[in-house]
């Protein structure tokens, strides 16, 4: 009993984040961000919500009333090869794309603080990928796991800026490296 108690406690604590992130990733893929009735975001694609949180619209992942940024989200599966994240020229606007592994570790960012706001194409590769990096790739990001949760946040400067912010945020997208061409 004591052995099961001790080992069980450790095992539960150890795997708890993995179970939780697994559920989050499944929610994103099957139901997206908009609640149980919305459509999912297929693996290796990203989706940007066109509106901020409001009393009638709150995303399913976190209900925290974020009135500052538009969310972009998606789940990457790098087991079949890398993906390329494209970000448009944000012209100084705050944005960040956060990369989280299935244990909850935030292993990289692309965005105003870390890479600046110029347009770029970031190669996201899984562990053990040693292919050739094509010309035109801004930077390589090596993920510690083939499953990656991607969350983007793009600043909305006010009511009148929503359309402009969305127009930029929706240009954040991913393409498999095998289908990616420079300046596409």
């Amino acid at each position, binding site marked *: 009993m004591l052995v099961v*108690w001790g080992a069980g*406690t450790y095992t539960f604590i150890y795997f*708890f*984040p993995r179970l939780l992130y697994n559920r989050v990733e499944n929610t994103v893929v099957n139901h997206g961000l908009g609640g149980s009735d919305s459509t999912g975001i297929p693996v290796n694609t990203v989706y940007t919500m066109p509106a901020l949180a409001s*009393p*009638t619209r709150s995303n399913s992942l976190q*209900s925290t009333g974020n009135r500052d940024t538009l969310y972009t989200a998606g789940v990457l599966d790098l087991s079949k090869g890398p993906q390329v994240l494209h970000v448009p020229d944000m012209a100084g606007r705050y944005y*960040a794309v956060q990369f989280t592994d299935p244990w909850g570790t935030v292993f990289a960012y692309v965005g105003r603080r870390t890479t600046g706001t110029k347009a770029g194409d970031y190669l996201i590769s899984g562990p053990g990928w040693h292919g050739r990096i094509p010309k035109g790739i801004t930077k390589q990001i090596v993920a510690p796991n083939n499953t990656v949760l991607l969350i983007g946040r793009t*600043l909305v400067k*006010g009511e009148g800026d929503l359309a402009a912010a969305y127009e930029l945020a929706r240009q954040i997208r991913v393409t498999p490296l095998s289908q990616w061409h420079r300046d596409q």
Partner: protein
Amino acid sequence: MSQAFPSLTLSRVLIIVLDVLLGMFVGAVLAFVTALLLITAQVHAMQTTVNGWSITMTCGKVTNGILVRAACAEALPMVNLPEEATYWTATEDGSGQELTGRHTYVLHFPPGGLPPNSAFWSLTATNIQGRLVANPFNRYSVGDRSGLVANPDDSIDIYIQHGVPAGHEANWLPVPTGNFKLWLRVYQPGAAILSGKYHVPPVMEVH
């Protein structure tokens, strides 16, 4: 006699097997409960509260141990690293009383006392569950983009209350009638925040 002996052995074996199974079951239940207790304790341990404002700045880091990792997954899944954004929440005023829309409050930032950042900041009110509550003015947050008006001495007062504060509409954060929760978000926070030196001023009830 010759028939009773084997059935006695069998029942002894059964009892031992049942004991072992029961032990494993009790162990597993205890493990589950212990793990949840440890995770909950860690959620509280990694949170710092000053002036009624709570903040956790440990989540998402690659160096986190398994207990911190589990507590972060439980309390703050998908949260930004602190260098990207810091989040304070408050459900109590500066004197430890629950925040409620039945009272009126002021959050006073002394001159130069707004949260240091190189991106933006905002203050939002939600219900206790974290949901925005509709108000007829469609106003849900104040911050660097909301046109806050400074006092003559450059300090800033934010009026946190359910009804309109006459003459202070620009600095008004509407709140629900019941208990509420405040969220202070600071993106690309300054060094004073990351070092823990900066403290958000207390939310003070106005009598």
